[in-house]
């Protein structure tokens, strides 16, 4: 927050989130995915890039249980993970 003496300086303006608010997970339906993600974070010393798969799983869980609007994962920034997945599946299927 800007101090009281900051006349004319730009003040912080909170912005609404792009896709709105997450509905609360009252029944803990996706708690397991969350635990996996947090454990991964703690193991990798809080490095996000290594735990993105778990965050993707968590969001997919939310989407499946109507706790989040269904969106293609590319729009949520998981395009590279999906490409890796399809690459991994490709040679595996042959």
């Amino acid at each position, binding site marked *: 927050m*800007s101090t009281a003496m900051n006349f004319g300086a730009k003040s912080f303006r909170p912005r609404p989130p792009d896709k709105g608010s997450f509905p609360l997970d009252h029944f803990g339906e996706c708690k397991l995915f969350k635990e996996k993600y947090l454990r991964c974070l703690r193991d990798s010393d809080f490095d996000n890039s290594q735990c993105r798969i778990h965050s993707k799983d968590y969001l997919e869980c939310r989407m499946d249980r109507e706790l989040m609007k269904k969106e293609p994962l590319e729009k949520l920034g998981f395009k590279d993970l999906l490409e890796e997945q399809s690459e991994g599946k490709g040679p595996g299927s042959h």
Partner: protein
Amino acid sequence: MVFLLCGFTAKHCIQQAFSSAWFSIAHGKTSVSCTSSAQLFLRRTPQRFLNQTRGVKSHKRKYQSQEDAWKKKNRTALTYIAATGVAMIGLSYAAVPLYRLFCQATGLGGTISGHDAEQVETMKPVRDRIIKVTFNADTHASIQWNFRPQQSEIYVVPGETALAFYKARNPTERPVIGISTYNVVPFEAAQYFNKIQCFCFEEQRLNPHEEVDMPVFFYIDPEFDSDPKLARIDTITLSYTFFEAKEGHSFPFPRYS
């Protein structure tokens, strides 16, 4: 002015005398008699002077028309000035929505530049710039929730989406509705901090003795790396504060203005 007029008449008397003398000499008339002196003092306006509008009255008429011309000029000038004044006032009123539109279109001055989903899809992570995002949780004195982050920090790079969790617990015997807002420090980094989805600005209801996980899905704009003011910033703190939403109390939600 009167002296000038006298001078004029005297001049024309002399002129007349000369011309009549010359005329009489030229035509061989020797009628130079005592009547010519009377003629000299007889004030007769010769023909060529009749057509001129010189004279006291005509001069006054000319002055009058000049004054009229000035008055007309002044009036037109005044009209122009008044019109300009009105136009300025109108422009200052119109400037408010116009400026808003301009800011939204160009994103100058740090206003919301209309993030689109396209950016999230196509942005490339800037791998060599690692930013530590620390989390802070606060509650207002009147709300009795236990509110805390579930991780102390996350190392993230600009252009990569990240997920973070907060946990809130209602230890009281009655359902409590809370509403939260957030803050990002340092201030210059706040414009690059984009939340895709979170739990702020909407009423969240917690039943008695209920505990929920509250996720925040965010990313840092890749432009963060190219801002010279932020070249030495490598820590961003995201801070959430929960307030109690009382019945009938409406909070001003941040909107695109």
